[in-house]
């Protein structure tokens, strides 16, 4: 199983590099960065000034047959599903695709003060989280587990940065971390 990271309107190469390194440490699978031809603007809602994540995933599914593994779409734009004001990410449960927005993982979104290390930590957590859904994991009640749900950035910060023992058994190729 391999992991493909597809940056789209994702502006930080440094963050991307650091994320690849983090994921490589944690998975025995290969981590690739791929270039997908998707025009995110097709999924921009003028009313909400956000991008509709479910539709983005639907589009990406059409373009990724050749990639055998999990495909995580990374973006800086703010994403939403219609009933909710925003989502950090969305994933196909037991599927191949997920999307992760780092827009609201930036500390400056909240306090105006940027913190690159905190951003990396949050991004790693949410990438592991979405991957977990791809592996069929639901939310975990263990606060130390990265599969704990986080609807706000505080919850991202509180929860652990790795899978709990129970969840770990489901994730293929995950190194004991």
């Amino acid at each position, binding site marked *: 199983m391999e992991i493909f990271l597809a940056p789209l309107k994702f502006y930080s190469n440094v963050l991307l590099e650091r994320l690849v390194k983090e994921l490589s440490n944690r998975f025995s699978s290969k981590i690739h960065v791929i270039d997908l031809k998707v025009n995110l603007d097709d999924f921009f809602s003028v009313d*909400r000034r956000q991008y509709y994540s*479910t539709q983005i995933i639907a589009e990406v599914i059409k373009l990724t047959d050749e990639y055998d593994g999990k495909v995580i779409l990374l973006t800086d734009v703010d994403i939403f599903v*219609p*009933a909710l004001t925003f989502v950090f990410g969305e994933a196909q449960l037991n599927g191949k695709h997920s999307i992760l927005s780092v827009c609201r993982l930036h500390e400056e979104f909240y306090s105006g003060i940027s913190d690159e290390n905190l951003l990396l930590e949050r991004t790693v957590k949410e990438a592991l989280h979405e991957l977990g859904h791809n592996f069929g994991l639901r939310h975990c009640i263990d606060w130390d587990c990265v599969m704990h749900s986080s609807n*706000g950035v505080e919850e991202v910060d509180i929860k652990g940065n790795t899978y709990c023992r129970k969840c770990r058994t489901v994730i293929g190729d995950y190194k004991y971390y």
Partner: protein
Amino acid sequence: MDKKQRILIVDDEKIVRESLFHWFEEENYFVDTAEDGEIALKKYSKEKFDLLLVDMKMPGMSGLDLLSKIKAIDKDALIILFTAFSSVPTAIAALKNGAYDYITKPVDPDELAHLVKNALEKRALKMENVQLKENISEIIRPDNLIGESFQIRKIYELVNSVSRTDTTVMIRGESGTGKELIAKAIHINSNRKYSPIITVNCGALAESLLESELFGHEKGSFTGAQFKRKGKFEMADGGTIFLDEIGSISLRMQIELLRVIETKQFNRVGGNELIKSDFRVITATNEPLEELVKAGKFREDLYYRLNVFTIVISPLRERRDDIPLLVDFFINKFSSAMNKKNKSISKEALDFLINYDWPGNVRELENAIERAMVVGKQDTIIVDDLPFHVSKNNFDLMKDEKSLAAMEKKYIQKILNENSWNISKTAQILEIDRVTLYNKISKYGLRKDEY
């Protein structure tokens, strides 16, 4: 809670049903959906749901109609309404008809998670209590302590749990926030409720008077003491003594107080008889007691003795969500008191009230509504009926600033502070997008702790 909680989503928009369905499913609930009231009713009468999320505006049967029909089948049904910002007043009316709460669409996932979790937990607790056949009535909400904000709900939880114990409680908050109401709520919900709660405002009395007020005095013990008099501690026997403005008592009285609280025994002023009394102590303060302790003005041992369980009430400006509910409550209250027919409030006036900083907190708001109802000539309270400083508040802020940028900086800082630096909310109020707001924050170097 090991069994999966069952949630029914009722909304005519497919896309909303679907996205909520997935969200709840991920959150590990059992979810079902219905596209209109009829279908929802059918589903509800067939199987039990722990919680219903109902859109207010649906063709055919409205959310409110569905609410009353479900409540007729099951008065304990837990219902949260979805509403547009514009129909918040209707939603507030729905709370009176038994809705648990309302939430505006699109929903902040964080807010939804808390709301649903709290609702289900409260319900589980209630059912547990019923099963145990314990006669703990649901917490009695004191007047004026209206609110559905997170802070107020948290306070109710604290009041609820501490009421059942005999713990010493300290209530902290600015003046006018309703500290005395909290004390009363604790008392009324405790098993001391059949004995009195005695209130002493420690700040209002000179030291010598406070002493006889608290401990009572014998006839002739000092000039003016013509009769024997029971003290407050004696009167509170079996009940609760509430010491307001505890930070203002003298060091000598602090020693006395510590002794009385520890021994539950005392002498009346000028008397030798040892009086015993069984009381619970609740104190309140708006002063930074920790600083008084550091400065040697408040005894550390007394501080620890009183500060066993602390309840902090946020100032009204930090829980603006409660303002519409409070306004509604006071309008009703004064309508019947003044024998006027029900007044309403204009959106513009309500906006002013929501945006004003309320240094005098709930008490000031209550006075403002009372005044508006006295001076108002129409059936609706309008901006002109509000006290001048309330309605002009937003301009006062600007009066010393000359340049546009300085004004903008100050204004953005104000709105950020008022919304606890919630960027989305602030951007919404300012009607700019978050990126613009973020740019302005860095341009002006705004910081969270600056006021």
